[in-house]
């Protein structure tokens, strides 16, 4: 998950033990050192691949405050009742035991790029030869007037999986009969372009069974969204009349909320809602900004090795990076991590470095056994990560194909989880 400083300060449970004494670890020997910040799809993959492929030649530390990582991907399926929360939780045990990654459960709070050190909330300092930042997202303050993280227990974002996702589901389960669920959708660019719309599908699936007269309203600042035709076709087919979306032409981009009153003001029209899911505008996880590698909301990178344009010894992966044509997704982060790991290992040990190649596929579940997907391959150009080729599911596909697509997504989940966490 992302390193949200504020949620850290708000919670006392997060930052306690560390596995090792990092200062000793840093100074004890001459092997090159890689520090990875953020144990999600980008960071954990990078840590695993650097450690696994260098076979002990490089010391790898992974800084991640949580001991159990809940993937954002498939968290919507938990909302829909297709997965248990335990299905999307992963521990870091294998990274440590099988690959020798030094997993440090703490928050990274400072980066000194000239001294090449990372400071942790617990006070320790880690030296690095190469720093890999994969902190995910944070929210842009004030992007939804009336909402800030202090309101997340009234109006959850559920866009970092875990307790927020569970809270949203509990609210949905407890919603009064015929109640109204409002989603405030985010502006581009944001984590997982089809995510909000898969979530709406899964919420509709949940409500269709538990609360069939309930309604869903999406307030959306975007004219168009990912897989729109597929989602709209599915919504009409499975949840006719339940879901409405107000785009910018109906003021979907002019929103404010009142978490105490549980109201959403859509372009001057005040709606009383029973459950409100606010997904604010996003930016790179805070530590990227602290490290000084962001330009605006995101961190520009060189596509060839995911190194920061501000510092060749700092690499930025996944959602936090300005990743050209690639969407912000767990798959993308995992793909970028491997390119980065190959380059970092080459720079530190002289191992062979192969050309960068990226790919992404995003599966979405619309209803039971009705899965769709979109994907593309990418390459590195001097300007950016550039798209090579792509595909998307078609409207009107038969049920068997959609079922197969869903089953494939389950296989993918098992595959990427093994690829990230070992």
């Amino acid at each position, binding site marked *: 998950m992302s390193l949200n400083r504020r949620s850290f300060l708000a919670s006392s449970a997060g930052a306690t033990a560390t596995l090792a004494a990092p200062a000793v670890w840093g100074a004890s020997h001459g092997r090159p050192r890689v520090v990875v910040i953020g144990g999600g799809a980008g960071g954990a993959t990078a840590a695993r*691949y650097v450690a696994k*492929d260098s076979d002990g030649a490089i010391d790898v530390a992974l800084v991640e405050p949580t001991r159990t990582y809940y993937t954002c991907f498939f968290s919507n399926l938990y909302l829909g009742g297709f997965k248990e929360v335990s299905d999307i939780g992963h521990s870091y045990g294998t990274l440590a035991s099988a690959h020798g990654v030094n997993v440090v459960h703490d928050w990274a709070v400072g980066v000194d790029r000239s001294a090449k050190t990372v400071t942790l909330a617990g006070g320790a300092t880690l030296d690095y030869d190469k720093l890999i930042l994969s902190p995910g997202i944070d929210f842009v303050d004030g992007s939804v007037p009336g909402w800030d993280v202090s309101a997340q227990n009234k109006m959850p974002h559920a866009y970092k999986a875990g307790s927020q996702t569970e809270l949203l589901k509990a609210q949905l389960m407890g919603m009064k009969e015929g109640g109204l669920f409002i989603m405030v959708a985010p502006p581009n660019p944001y984590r997982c372009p089809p995510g909000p719309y898969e979530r709406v599908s899964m919420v509709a699936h949940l409500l269709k069974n538990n609360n069939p007269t309930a309604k869903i309203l999406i307030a959306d600042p975007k004219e168009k969204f990912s897989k729109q035709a597929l989602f709209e076709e599915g919504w009409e087919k499975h949840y006719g009349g339940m879901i409405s979306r107000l785009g910018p032409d109906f003021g979907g981009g002019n929103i404010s909320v009142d978490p105490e009153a549980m109201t959403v003001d859509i372009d001057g029209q005040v709606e009383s809602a029973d459950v409100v899911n606010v997904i604010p505008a996003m930016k790179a996880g805070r530590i990227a900004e602290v490290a000084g590698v962001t330009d605006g909301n995101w961190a520009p990178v060189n596509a060839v090795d995911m190194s920061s344009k501000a510092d060749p010894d700092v690499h930025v992966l996944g959602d936090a990076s300005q990743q050209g044509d690639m969407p912000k997704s767990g*798959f993308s982060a*995992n*793909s970028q991590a*491997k390119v980065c790991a*190959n380059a970092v290992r080459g720079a530190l040990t002289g191992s*062979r470095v*192969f050309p960068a*190649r990226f*790919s992404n*596929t995003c599966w979405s579940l619309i209803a039971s056994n009705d899965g769709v*997907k979109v*994907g*593309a*391959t990418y390459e590195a150009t001097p300007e950016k990560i550039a798209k*090579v*080729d*792509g*595909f998307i*599911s078609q409207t009107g596909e038969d049920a068997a194909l959609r079922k197969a697509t869903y*089953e*494939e*997504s*389950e*296989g*993918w989940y*098992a*595959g*990427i989880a*093994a*690829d990230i966490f070992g």
Partner: protein
Amino acid sequence: MLRFFGVFIPSIGAVAVVLLSAYVFANRLVEKAPEPAAAYMSGPTAVQQEVAPKEVTESIGDADVAANEAAEPPSGIEEATTTSPVSERVAAGEKAFRKCRACHQVGEDAKNRAGPTLNGVVGRVAASVDGFNYSKAMKAAGMRGLIWNDEELAGYLAKPRVYLRGTKMSFAGLKSEDEIAATIAYLKTFSESPVGAGDGDASAAAPEVALDSSVLDIEGDPEYGEYLSSECTTCHQADGDDEGIPSIVRWAEDRFVTVMHAYKLGVREHPVMNMVAGRLGNEEIAALAAYFAALED
């Protein structure tokens, strides 16, 4: 008329087996080609014709076995006493098959029991009997295109658990080569048209693209393959587990290469695989094949 079909249909089947074997052997029999790798699209017949005649002569005998026996049910013991060497072999096979009967049924009313029915087993794709709960290893073998031809069956029957690690078949194996050959001959009598016997899966696993040996013989660079494999392991699990997405580890290299080219050329259809394979060159496919073939547990 019935007798005529009894003879005829298995022959077609045998030829089909031959064409399949031709593919398997093409790599070895066709002269190492001097053509550039780019010429891998040579027509399927070009490769197959060169080897097919030889194989046909070798296989006709087997086809005849199947033909003769299919005409008369093997239950006719007196039939076995009519002294043709072929019939003798089948009779010996029937006897050997008693060891298998505890788990496997053949014949008209055969049903899946502890093991799948073996009607049509010769020439069919591994793990292709509907409704039988195969082991993960067997399913993976079917997915990568293992076809139960004489060679594969002989290997498997000799030492099942060595030949196919992870199989559920808890049988030590048949002891002598004669016994194995006889059992296969007997099983062929229940395999009217050994290849694609009314089963869509079989045709799907037949080699869809005939690749020039210059493509099949590229020595893959396993280190490059390891790097490239990271694109695969986002979905396909490196330890060979398969849950909705097939395992791709420890395939024979030429099978791997053929399947990837089938995706690349669109002969096999799957949007993700068509896209991924579409940008892999011959060297890259060979590298991947080399890496995954050698991958340990």
